[in-house]
């Protein structure tokens, strides 16, 4: 784990879980897998606190445990999983676009709580939705369960591994740590629950009791006493599936930018059809025949079969090479070349960074060296049509930024510089790694700046919070307009201005973190896909 990653993880853990968890988490990330006592000893915290911190981390899937020989249990932190916490807003937003508010709240609850049972999720979400609805309306559990089942069917949520029920009646000595298993087919199996009920408001007033307050309340309390029907079946958000969705989105928008809307719709259909059938790390999707694609096109699009075939041919012939033709049966079999698509997206990211940082002429040289693989100084000047002095300057700037590297080819065994060829080349994988590292550090900087801004104005924030609390309590007890005005004026106009600026800055920094995270996603997917192929 690089320094930048560790710093970022520490900031994230601190913001979400607090000091103690941060200390334990960072220690585990730095030192790898350790047993409980060693952790307590090295960090100087009491065993009790270490246990609690580990509980929190395990609940959120940030730490895993393993039983080693001689019965020692070792805990290991997963740095990459901690970095996913940056992406939570994106996951929630995706769920909202696909399954509207209900889906959004389900995913939010699951992400914030790590693991939950289905009934608990449904209940909580129904309660929250009922809060926001108008008086007299409540959210039915059945609707929420429906959305939950749809999420499970499309693999956005999955079951957590559990302890297998042992067959033999004699359990024997319990293992030091439970061994959790899960089988492929059980992962998305929703238990048959009959969840009946409606969401409750936090402030239960007489209006929404519908005349049976006592009965409802007693039912509620009996619910608590009865064993929860799906105890032990915990669900978590399936981050890989979300990543697959983001990747599909990126490919579709790239096709839309390069070609037109209809082609991007066709590609989206193809990707949707291969969602469940293709494993997420495969370089190609399953071959789809043109007839199948025609049948699965969204209802609103009525293009004829011929036109569809033409579009598919165009997509297959395009220099982008996202779509390839793999056979002729069934009207033509087409695959989407995922690895190539990710490569093109990562390359485009690199080019965009070079362009913004060094200028468009540098970007021209960069793309030239990318396409021609290896070039001499003289050839670069000739092809790019840039005067020699400027071209040299730009090449050296990019060289010191590690976007371009030199390959030496000696003519003589003594490697004399005057008798050696120096060729410029771009190594995409290493440039992507370098950029990824820079992204991590940038996000850490943005978070630090945000915390600094908040700390600077802490006094002002506290004052405004106090004023708001006073106003709220006064409103509840029914105060006069004049008194409210007086209290509000406690915050002067420049202070209000300052608060506005602070809010705007914090929002800007937050939004910027999410944008940098998009870059991180593209680069990480590309690196992962390349490493798997090797």
């Amino acid at each position, binding site marked *: 784990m690089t320094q930048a990653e560790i710093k970022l993880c520490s900031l994230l853990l601190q913001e979400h879980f607090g000091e103690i968890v941060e200390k334990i988490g960072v220690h585990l990330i730095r030192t790898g897998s350790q047993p409980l006592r060693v952790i307590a000893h090295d960090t100087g915290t009491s065993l009790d606190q270490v246990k609690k911190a580990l509980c929190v981390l395990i609940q959120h899937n940030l730490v895993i445990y393993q039983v080693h020989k001689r019965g020692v249990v070792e805990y290991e932190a997963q740095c990459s999983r901690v970095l996913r916490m940056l992406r939570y807003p994106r996951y929630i937003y995706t769920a909202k676009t696909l399954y509207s508010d209900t889906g959004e709240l389900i995913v939010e609850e699951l992400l914030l709580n790590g693991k939950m049972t289905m009934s608990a999720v449904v209940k909580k979400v129904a309660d929250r939705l009922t809060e926001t609805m108008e008086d007299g309306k409540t959210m039915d559990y059945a609707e929420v369960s429906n959305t939950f089942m749809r999420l499970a069917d499309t693999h956005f949520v999955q079951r957590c591994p559990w302890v297998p029920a042992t067959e033999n009646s004699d359990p024997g000595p319990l293992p030091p740590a439970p061994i959790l298993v899960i089988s492929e087919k059980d992962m998305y199996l929703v238990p048959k629950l009959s969840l009946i009920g409606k969401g409750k408001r936090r402030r239960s007033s007489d209006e929404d009791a519908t005349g049976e307050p006592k009965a409802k309340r007693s039912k509620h309390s009996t619910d608590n006493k009865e064993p929860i029907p799906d105890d032990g079946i915990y669900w978590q958000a399936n981050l890989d599936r979300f990543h697959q969705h983001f990747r599909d989105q990126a490919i579709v928008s*790239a096709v839309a930018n390069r070609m037109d809307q209809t082609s991007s719709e066709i590609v989206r259909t193809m990707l949707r059809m291969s969602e469940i059938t293709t494993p997420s790390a495969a370089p190609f999707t399953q071959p789809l025949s043109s007839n199948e694609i025609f049948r699965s096109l969204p209802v609103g699009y009525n293009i004829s079969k011929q036109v569809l075939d033409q579009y598919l041919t*165009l997509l297959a012939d395009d220099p982008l090479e996202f779509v390839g033709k793999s056979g002729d049966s069934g009207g033509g079999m087409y695959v989407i070349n995922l690895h190539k698509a990710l490569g*093109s997206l990562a390359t485009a990211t690199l080019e965009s960074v070079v362009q*913004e940082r060094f200028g468009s002429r540098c970007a021209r040289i960069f793309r030239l060296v990318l*396409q021609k693989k290896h070039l001499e100084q*003289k050839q670069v000047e000739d*092809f790019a049509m840039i005067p020699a002095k400027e071209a040299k300057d730009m090449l050296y700037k990019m060289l010191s930024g590690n976007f371009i590297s030199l390959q030496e080819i000696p003519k003589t065994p003594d490697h004399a510089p005057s008798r050696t060829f120096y060729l410029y080349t771009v190594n995409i994988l290493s440039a992507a790694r370098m950029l990824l590292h820079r992204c991590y550090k*940038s996000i850490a900087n943005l978070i630090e700046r945000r915390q600094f801004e908040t700390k600077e104005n802490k006094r002002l924030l506290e004052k405004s919070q106090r004023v708001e609390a006073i106003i709220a309590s006064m409103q509840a007890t029914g105060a006069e307009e004049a008194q409210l005005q007086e209290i509000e004026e406690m915050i002067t106009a420049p202070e209000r201005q300052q608060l506005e600026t602070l809010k705007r800055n914090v929002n800007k920094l937050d939004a910027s973190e999410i944008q940098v995270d998009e870059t991180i996603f593209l680069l990480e997917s590309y690196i992962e896909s390349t490493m798997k192929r090797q």
Partner: protein
Amino acid sequence: MADVKVKVQPPDADPVEIENRIIELCHQFPHGITDQVIQNEMPHIEAQQRAVAINRLLSMGQLDLLRSNTGLLYRIKDSQNAGPVSFFLSKMKGSDNQEKLVYQIIEDAGNKGIWSRDIRYKSNLPLTEINKILKNLESKKLIKAVKSVAASKKKVYMLYNLQPDRSVTGGAWYSDQDFESEFVEVLNQQCFKFLQTKAETARESKQNPMIQRNSSFASSHEVWKYICELGISKVELSMEDIETILNTLIYDGKVEMTIIAAKEGTVGSVDGHMKLYRAVNPIIPPTGLVRAPCGLCPVFDDCHEGGEISPSNCIYMTEWLEF
């Protein structure tokens, strides 16, 4: 009678006579005569006398010595051929053989010119001699020095009245050894605009996608014609020049190219294939990292919390937040 070899001094053993005979023979065979032919004609002359005569003719510049795969050829120098050299010789009769040699080497180099070091290699003369000779020849206006655009210190020599080759002067993009960047930029933009408008009209025609796409392509020949008609270039541009400009547009990421097979004889096809160009959009918008100040920061590596440059006191961030 046949066996007796009589050494008779032939009546026309006079050296001048021999030379005249040889010249007559050369006139008879304008393509050149070999030693064998002369021998056949004048069998009574000894080899030595023949050699002397031929040498004299050569040094007087009336004969040309050529090598063919059968052997050595002697050819009469006619007035056209002898033009510059006779002119040259008339200027300095009995001049240095070395100068003649150097001149010959430079003439052979044609319009590409030859570097002084290469002249030295070919003639095996020492450097000082070469320099003296070159100065002499230059002052007599027989050769000239042309600065090469590749290495600005290098001078190549060629005959006075020849036009330098494109590779030396750089062709259409160089005027007086200076690379014309604005000219290239202007051409760049014009070509791009042409391709862009073509793609726009194709997209708006809203026909079936195949036709739409094919009509958004332009062959390099079309672009060349358009640029010629625009008349922004004072120098005549060839199709290869336009293709180099279009290649720079490809490296800018604004244009893509495909090669299709075309019948020989269709306009613009080279060796059975044609290059087609099309304006395209970039596939992703500017990426997230460059929207944050850290992505473009020049002092990124020096920045850390608690240092002189840190996120808390970053001036770039302050400016960016005030936007």
